[in-house]
């Protein structure tokens, strides 16, 4: 009897369309995603599976760009271990096993006339690109890097881009908050994705200035679909699943109103 690979709704073997190294350890992959691209929204993520039977859990990777006309999805990811290292070796035409799109995504209601910060830190930068494409308002991108820049030029067509680097090699020396303060930037609403200390600082700034604030969170996941309760975050209000104060990052998020979550 032959072993058949039959995946359920949502989990599919797709094809790599293009793969490129953007800078040291940061890769960009376009995936022929068929109707998965049509269903995708900015701020959602994909679960990618390795081909290795010893590494079983999906790797959640945020969606960087959506090309609905061509049915393509782009991910930009950092090589951080076994799984992402394997993905980085995939060549165009090779299979890539994907479940998604997962999670809620950023709210996109018309912010006409309002000014927005799109704040990305490190590997939290990629999801801001599709958001920049789809959000209709005045946008200022504030991007924080350790040292090597990536994607910053691709943001330029959506508005002014402000860069911060930890080593001061480009833009403001320091973090995204330092860049906002140094440049004297102002906004009415902020969307952010990045490491937790950055999200905390963005939340504090938003509260201080009375800005609406949306944060995209990251957490270790197992199922990615809301069943295992592995990736919860502390929430202000009772969650819909367990009626405690633990929202699921994979299902209730990854995007939350800042006031909704404790960081």
């Amino acid at each position, binding site marked *: 009897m032959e*072993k058949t690979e039959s*995946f359920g709704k949502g*989990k599919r073997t797709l094809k790599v369309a293009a793969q490129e190294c953007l800078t040291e350890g940061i890769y960009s992959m376009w995936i022929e995603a068929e109707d998965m691209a049509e269903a995708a929204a900015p701020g959602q993520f994909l679960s990618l599976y390795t081909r290795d039977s010893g590494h*079983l859990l999906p790797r959640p990777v945020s969606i960087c760009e959506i090309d609905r006309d061509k049915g393509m999805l782009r991910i930009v990811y950092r090589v951080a271990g076994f799984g992402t290292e394997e993905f980085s070796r995939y060549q165009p035409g090779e299979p890539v096993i994907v479940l998604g799109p997962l999670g809620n995504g950023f709210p996109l209601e018309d912010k006409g006339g309002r000014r927005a910060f799109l704040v990305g830190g490190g590997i939290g930068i990629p999801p801001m690109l599709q958001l920049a494409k789809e959000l209709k308002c005045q946008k200022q991108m504030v991007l924080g890097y350790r040292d090597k820049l990536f994607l910053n030029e691709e943001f330029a067509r959506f508005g002014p881009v402000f860069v911060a680097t930890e080593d001061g090699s480009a833009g403001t020396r320091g973090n995204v908050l330092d860049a906002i303060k140094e440049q004297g930037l102002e906004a009415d609403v902020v969307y952010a994705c990045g490491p937790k200390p950055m999200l905390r600082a963005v939340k504090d700034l938003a509260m201080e200035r009375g800005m609406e604030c949306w944060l995209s969170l990251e957490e270790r996941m197992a199922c990615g679909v809301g069943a295992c309760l*592995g990736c919860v975050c502390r929430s202000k209000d009772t969650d819909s699943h*367990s009626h*405690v104060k633990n929202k699921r990052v994979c*299902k209730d998020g990854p995007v939350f109103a800042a006031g909704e979550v404790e960081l």
Partner: protein
Amino acid sequence: MNTKVSLAGVELKNPVMTASGTFGSGAEYGEFVDLNRLGAVVTKGVANVPWEGNPTPRVAEVRGGMLNAIGLQNPGIDVFIKRDIPFLRQYDTRIIVNVCGKTREDYLEVAERLGDQPVDLLEINISCPNVKEGGIAFGQDPKAVEAITRAVKDRAKQPVIMKLSPNVTDIGETARAAEAGGADVISLINTLTGMKIDINRRTFALANKTGGMSGPAIKPIAVRMVYQAAQAVKLPIIGMGGIVDWEDALEFIMAGATAVSVGTANFFNPYATVEIVEGIQAFMKEQGVQDIQELIGAVR
């Protein structure tokens, strides 16, 4: 061809069910698989009141499996009765409710509350390694196993499955203790206590330090324990631990399991349960097996 099996008088259309804690109450995976195709859905553990569970990180991958220390986060029996049971009742599958507790009274309260509910069996979790009170504390001492089994049996209206821990020296002794306490069925194995160190952060991968290991790497241990338990008691056994495909499921059945639960495999193949049902049927057809009973405990 007959794939029906019976657990304490409850007939299942096939021996394939979900493992508690990996499938919620079915709603999330209902988007991927037809729940009507499953022998039973075993729910995430439910306590008398909501439990918040452990801090994160709660999960970590290890080679061939994973560690979890969720800590039995659950909405409590009130929400469960109002929301989850009616959801599952829409499907033609058996409902097995996993019951957890910190104290003996917690277990009894949940079992009692479920007495008038349309659920088929109760699975008593005395083997969770991730909670400080209750859980495994009831599952590692044979006397405690017998006592909690007897107490639950005394109150429960539905047949009772005792879910056993592999973190014991002699699984046969634990199985006999459950049988002596009046258990109708035993299920095993729960997860094995494990640990992972994050060498870059120089700390534990899980906030709870230790977690329960599951996934295909534990399967040979689980098959061995199911076999030993089957030799030790006359009770029907639900076998689980690292099942990812129909071949794994048949190993458990031949080792003595009447039914099998699929857990961690759901996380990397949401369709695993139904594929296993189909694989068992195809195997039976190819091998000319008329009744799955011929395979249960076929290896002695």
